[in-house]
């Protein structure tokens, strides 16, 4: 059973939003799949019995201008139906089981996608055609059971049972999108592999990074990390953490003035498949997670903004076992370092490992390092430096590497699911 699950995940094809790059900006979601009264995000953008996801693109003006509908993934066309009236506004025009003019594609992983309510005579494919992701199938219309121009995108399993491609608190994972995007907005329409986190530095025990999640080096490539049902939007920053021995590793995120969250991933795949654990406290609360680090095994730690939140942060890696610090590689400097109150983020060298400093004190004798209350590490220099390598520093805190990045916080509110 586990093998079958792994196999199905391995063979699954993810989807790009089904329109061309030129028309992508015109589209917007109008109704998601109905989950007994709510949509995938437990919201109300749905209607009773709706089995697919509807996306509009400027009503009849947009339809007349021509809004592309493209294949969400590679596959083979198994059904087409064209020739039905395409300016329906009453929701009761006949044809194609209510989908009006439509195309159905069977994908290699066994799933099926359906593109409904298309414009009459816009279909460019026929049964048996092999289509690639992004290939134009036709144009948005208002045929069939439609109240206005839109595309009805529906995913079905091999038994023709509709599934929701979106993953959220009211829809079981995984997502079928390459990049799901935020709620009430569009999934990404770029075909290809799911985004990966891009770790910008390797951290070891005792290392500290001070910066902002929208500093240079941040990405917005990821949206979901698999540990929980929350949907993250970025901007995020990713780091690789390695320990020298098998030992518990505690990663803490403090100094926040907006809602950032913390995730530990077993790989740099940010598609939700490799999450170890996460910390997602509301608002500007501190985040902390502890996992069992294995000697020499890389873990990706991600600092993510909740629904676009950006904030300064202090990220600290502490190891309970007192093992060797394998050392980290300082983030690459990308601009001037103006210190804790500066305007651009920048990596700096570690602090002097022999000097008592603000980055390595074990205030509470718990064998972990803390920053002094109310303080942030000093900015060192703008130069890249090798990572600290002497000892974990868990007890003394003396070798903690402090990288300071510039700040200024823009706090955004947070919404948590009930």
């Amino acid at each position, binding site marked *: 059973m586990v093998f079958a699950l792994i196999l199905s995940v391995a063979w699954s094809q993810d989807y790009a939003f089904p329109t061309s790059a030129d028309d992508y900006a015109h589209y917007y979601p*109008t*109704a998601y799949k109905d989950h007994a009264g709510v949509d995938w995000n437990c919201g*109300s*953008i749905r*209607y*009773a*019995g*709706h*089995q*697919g996801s*509807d996306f*509009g693109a400027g*009503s009849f003006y947009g339809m007349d201008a021509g809004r592309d509908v493209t294949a969400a993934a590679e596959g083979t066309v198994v*059904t*087409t*139906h*064209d*020739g*039905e*009236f395409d300016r*329906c506004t*009453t*929701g*009761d*025009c*006949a*044809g*194609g*089981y*209510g*989908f009006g003019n*439509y195309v159905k594609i069977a994908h290699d992983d066994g799933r099926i996608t*359906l593109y*409904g*309510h298309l414009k*009459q*005579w*816009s*279909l*460019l*494919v*026929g*049964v048996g055609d092999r289509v690639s992701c992004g290939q134009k199938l*036709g144009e948005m219309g*208002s045929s*069939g*059971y*439609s*109240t*206005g*121009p*839109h595309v*009805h995108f*529906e995913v079905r399993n091999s*038994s*023709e*049972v509709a599934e929701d491609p979106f993953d959220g608190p009211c829809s079981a994972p995984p997502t079928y999108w390459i990049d799901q995007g935020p709620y009430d907005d569009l999934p990404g329409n770029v075909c290809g592999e799911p985004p990966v986190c891009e770790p910008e530095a390797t951290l070891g025990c005792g290392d500290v990074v001070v910066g902002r999640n929208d500093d240079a080096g941040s990405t917005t490539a990821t949206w979901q990390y698999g540990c929980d049902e929350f949907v993250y939007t970025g901007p995020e920053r990713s780091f690789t953490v390695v320990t020298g021995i098998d030992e518990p590793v505690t990663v803490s995120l403090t100094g926040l003035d907006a809602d950032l969250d913390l995730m530990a991933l077993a790989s740099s795949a940010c598609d939700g498949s490799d999450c170890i654990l996460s910390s997602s406290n509301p608002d500007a609360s501190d985040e902390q997670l502890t996992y069992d680090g294995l000697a020499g095994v890389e873990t990706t730690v991600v600092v993510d903004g909740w629904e676009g939140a950006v904030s300064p942060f202090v990220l600290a890696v502490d190891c309970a076992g007192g093992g060797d610090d394998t050392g980290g590689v300082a983030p690459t400097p990308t601009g001037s370092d103006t210190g804790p109150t500066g305007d651009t983020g920048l990596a700096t060298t570690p602090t002097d490992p022999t000097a008592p400093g603000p980055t390595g004190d074990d205030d509470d004798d718990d064998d972990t390092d803390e920053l002094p209350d109310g303080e942030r590490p000093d900015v060192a220099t703008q130069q890249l430096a090798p990572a600290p390598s002497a000892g974990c520093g868990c007890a003394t805190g003396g070798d903690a590497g402090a990288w300071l990045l510039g700040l200024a916080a823009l706090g955004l509110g947070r919404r948590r699911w009930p």
Partner: protein
Amino acid sequence: MWWFPLMVACGSPSPDVVAREGGGGAREGQELARVEAAERVAWVEREAAGSALYVVDHRGLAVVRTRDGAPDRVALSADGEQLAWVASADGLPAVFTAPYADGAPVQLTNRSVRRPKGQPPVGFVPPPVREGGLSFEGDELVWEAEGQPWRVRWSSP
């Protein structure tokens, strides 16, 4: 006699739908069309991977006429002896007819339409837009589409 409650088309906007474009397809088990004549009832029901045209007479015997081509828009002649419906033929909607009792369906429209992809086909006869738009008048089937009436003889002369 069986009696089936009419179902609301699932694409119709429900009260909690914001005024945005929407609409889907029929759900499995949903009745797509229904017509009665001479104590016979014909209806089309959505199935898992298609739809099927059923007919039932006063004996209560349901007969599946066709599952081919997603039948809908069904009509019965006044005497209940002749059926007509719209189904997809080679990806185009076409009008079919068949006797109730027996006989293979006959495609009445769009049999040899030339269809360049992405362009209106030459000689295409549009189907009725809505359920109930197709009806028998003597030996002809009549409907309106694209703003004009269409008449097709269904019986052999």
